[in-house]
């Protein structure tokens, strides 16, 4: 096991932290369940971790907007720690609600803490969608998908608010798309339910300009164990392991 420790940052309402820990372990990564409250009280500090994963769930009951309260607490109370963490080039992964947190915090798409440039809107169907999806990995440089470009990854997807909307006002910048919902032939698709939320351009996951941060709606941790229908999700965590050990 790597000595580098990955933090799984969870809050009231998070409900995917345990299986995320199991997936990281399978990838050979030491990890700790870090409670946001302990971080706010200063009982733990981000700097003691080498990577950060924000797992799925309904943090704070999705009150005021999915991921918004979690993101507000991060941006307002942990700004310095988080900035230091990002600036020191440490990897960050946001899964489902974790992606919503990164978007609400401004970390994605443009790595500007406190400046939101995207939203994850309610699915086109206005319903929670529980599906198994196929994700086409783009050529976009990203730590988490190293050497996976062109591959199709199968994993479960389960969310009610996953339709990305990017703000066009940010001059010169455009979101870096890493994962796209695709059909059985591997072609990106807008077709429901292969694209479960009506995401424009079939966007399922994006990274930032450093390629260190990944946010995705589907659940790689649910496709990481030998008993799972697919082990494709493990590839993302193995890439983290490779990077931390290098």
């Amino acid at each position: 096991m790597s000595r580098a420790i990955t933090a799984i940052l969870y809050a009231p309402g998070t409900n995917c932290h345990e299986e995320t820990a199991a997936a990281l372990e399978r990838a050979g990564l030491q990890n700790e369940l870090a409670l946001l409250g302990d971080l706010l009280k200063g009982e733990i500090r981000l700097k003691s971790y080498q990577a950060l994963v924000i797992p799925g769930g309904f943090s704070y009951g999705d009150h005021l907007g999915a991921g918004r309260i979690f993101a507000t607490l991060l941006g307002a109370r942990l700004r310095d720690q988080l900035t230091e963490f990002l600036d020191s080039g440490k990897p960050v992964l946001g899964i489902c609600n974790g992606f919503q947190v990164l978007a609400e915090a401004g970390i994605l798409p443009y790595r500007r803490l406190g400046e939101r440039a995207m939203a994850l809107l309610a699915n086109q169907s206005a319903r929670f969608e529980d599906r198994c999806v196929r994700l086409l990995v783009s050529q976009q440089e990203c730590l988490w998908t190293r050497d996976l470009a062109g591959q199709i990854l199968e994993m479960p997807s389960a969310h009610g608010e996953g339709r990305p909307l990017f703000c066009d006002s940010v001059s010169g910048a455009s979101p870096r798309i890493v994962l796209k919902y695709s059909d059985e032939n591997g072609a990106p698709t807008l077709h429901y339910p292969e694209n479960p939320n009506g995401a424009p351009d079939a966007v399922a996951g994006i990274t930032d300009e450093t390629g260190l941060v990944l946010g995705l709606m589907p659940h790689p941790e649910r496709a990481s164990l030998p008993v799972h229908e697919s082990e494709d999700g493990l590839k993302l965590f193995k890439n983290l392991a490779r990077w931390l050990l290098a």
Partner: protein
Amino acid sequence: MAIYSVYVSSRDDAEARHWLAFFRRHGYKDLKGLVIERVYWLEGNLWPERLSPLLANPVYQTTSSQSMLDPSQGPILEIAYRHAVTDPETPSILEAARALGEDGLVFARLSRRYQFCGVTRQNALRIAERFLFNKVVERIREPHELVSTLRPAGEPDPVTTVSLAGMCDQELQALSAARSWYAPLSQMRVIQAHERQIGRPHTDAEIEILAQTWSDHCYHTTWKSLGLLKKLSEATARIAHPLVVSAFKDNAGGIEFYEDWVITIKGETHNFPSSIAPFGGVATKHGGVIRDTLGFGKGAYPIGGTTIMGTLDPAMPENQVPEGALPPQLILSESIRATAYYMNPMGIPMMHAIYRRHPGYAKCLALGHSLGLIPRKYALKDPPQPGDLLLLIGGETGRDGIHGATASSASMTEETLAKESAAVQIGHPITERRFTTAIPALRDQGCIRSITDLGAGGISCGAGEMGAETGVALNLDAVPLKDRSLTAWEILLSESQERMLIAVPAEKLDEAEKLLDRYEVGHAAIGRFTDSHRLEATWRGQKVVDLEMSFLWSACPIDSIPMAEPERKLAPLRIPEAKTAADWSEAVRRVLGHFHCADQSAAGSRFDSTVQGRTIVGPYGGKNHRMPSGFYLSAPLRGRNYGVITTVAFNPLYGEIDPAGMARLMMIEAITKAVVAGADYRELALCDNFYTPRVRPEVAWNLTRMVEAVAGFSEEIGMPFISGKDSSSGTFDSAGVSIEVPPTLAVMAFGRMPDVRRAVTRDFKKPGNKLLLVGRTDSHALGGSVYADTCGQRGERLFDPGDGGNIRRLWDTLLWVHREEGYVSASAIAEGGAFLRLFEAAYGSGLGARVELDSVTEGGRIRKDEILFGEFIGSVLLEVPPPALSLIEEEFIGRVPYEVMGEVTREPRITLAQGGKAIWEEEVSGLAEVWSKPFREALE
């Protein structure tokens, strides 16, 4: 203090689009548009602008100090929580505001403004009252309403005494009805006598507690009177199954798993509230049964759930809906929305989502199960000790759910809807999710001596049960309230959701409170266990309750219930046999399109089935994840291949023909579904949920026969029931007629499997493999079938599966063949018969099937349509690779009846052949069209 308002509008609002379409479907065709605006009311010394980042994401939302709605576009209604009630979102807003440095914010509220374009204000009000808010806790905010503060306000009524002295029987009954106690005369008399005995009138709180503790819902008076629970638990005791850890004595039942873990099961019905307010009722159905898992032993962890609904036909035109009942289509769609609303945030995978219909379900069936996991050493509670503290954890106590227990025990009338709306509870999954995370931590720290959930009956029931052997003294002033106007008896009876009671050893209180703070779970020590053997409560300096536990728990009179065999109006089936290709096409379409057989994934796909990462076989499988799996399989211990399997049998079409026969068939169906998947029936246990009409002699007869049948059969096959629930209030009185639910029993089989990789799914695996129909087909199997239902008929008898010995022989044989890997796909015959199974297996695999009818109809002795649509419960369809065939036949011959009925084909087509030539065939894709439409359309 200053009060500000911030209006938030969204430029892309899927929720508004959803409601607009929904209202138009529900009779408001002239509604042209719907706009939703959120309003945040903020009290304190602050700059509201500084909170904007919290209240809106500028990418799609805009904030303003005035409403952005133009009144000329249509009536606007603002829905807010009642002044005495705390909004669920208030704590979140305050916490986040503090994080932004806005310490000046002292209180916040959220309301929603709906603008209805194209309808009158009256219609807008009708829509809002029916779909958008709950009068118990919410209200319509008057425009320009001025308030001095947002903080909850309200004064409780004083405690009063109620003397029954000198009242005659009619007066007692009238009082019981007027106060919504629903207490029968016999109980009123006992209370009257008790008043004489203690020499003082009871307080209102005391009578409320007695009426509720003795209600059928809490005390199961009907079942006690008929001695039914005893029949089941004694059968279980006699079986003495080595795996059983806890049966019928805790909030759930538990059996041994592996490596010193125990798995638990509980099924709970929530029929009454779900009938009058499906969204609130079904949401709290899930919340309640999950708390039964958390309240097992010293706290089990929920790892799976189900939702099982029985309603009137959702296709029923609104003008045929019984007066006072909600349209079944509304109950169906609202129940689905509620299950998604509650189960998904809880992070508990959906195992089975099943929807059935019957003309008797005017008062719907709303059943949910919860599967749990707990270390062996915590599976049994310790008795609370005098001096232990009574810790109330979770949400605050409100007016919601008052009289839920008594009201749900009564039958339902057209007035109930209006009168008992207070019985409807509001669920907040985030609150329950918080203590779902905290309870295992408390347990592992030794802070829990005993734990129970607060469901029907609230604090008085929970504390009364926990302290029955010792005594308990409550301090009601310590109970955190979300509604300041609650008086003592309301605090005691409130069924506010998301609350649990824990008996904590005094020396552990400090540690427990620290842990709960860390997980941000509300808590309050509201009392102490005593050695007084009394239930005592004080409030505002008064003693408001002082009852002997012995009186509370043993003085309830049990009225004897007469029994009479009902006269069943049954007619033999008269269904013309399908002969021509056209007959077959027509019959197949009727069956695949039947509500019970059709694709229900439009509901199921709204529930998370893979959260927790334990799911091995979810509710839907096969190529495109839309084939119903027929069983759920979980691998609960990470890094281990051990499995928990669950299956459900629930068929409302059998009961009216033969309740006892139905009950046995439900057991056999549930067990066989698990056995074909590869589970050893000797490692399974059962959970029962009965639903019967308000008791009368004929109902008592049916119910008793059902219970005797399942108790007897469970002993015959050596498989115990370990948990369950009965509801004896399935009667809906409307305009002078009583609509009764059919005798209903839903059976869940659950148990362990040593290796999840050995489970066999139902989708076809390889062209050329043989299809075997295994099990007896020598008795008629169309009685109560879907096929008969599509012809508007029921029939006069059910399929006879044979005795326990026969069935065990079939299961043993299947187990042997499974061990030898003799079959590669399998499914148990149920609704829709073998044909539905053939279709599903083909659909899930992209392959097809060819059936040689001569081989299975025993030279015409059995009707062809009966073989394909007959519900031969206990029989199974196996896919066998040719090399394994001889091995299997040797094993089967002389032990179990079987026929090679055909084979798997490469072409995705179903073919029925006779004398070697096809008499009917159709592409699977075409059949899938027929199969996938009806349920989706019922929702639209």
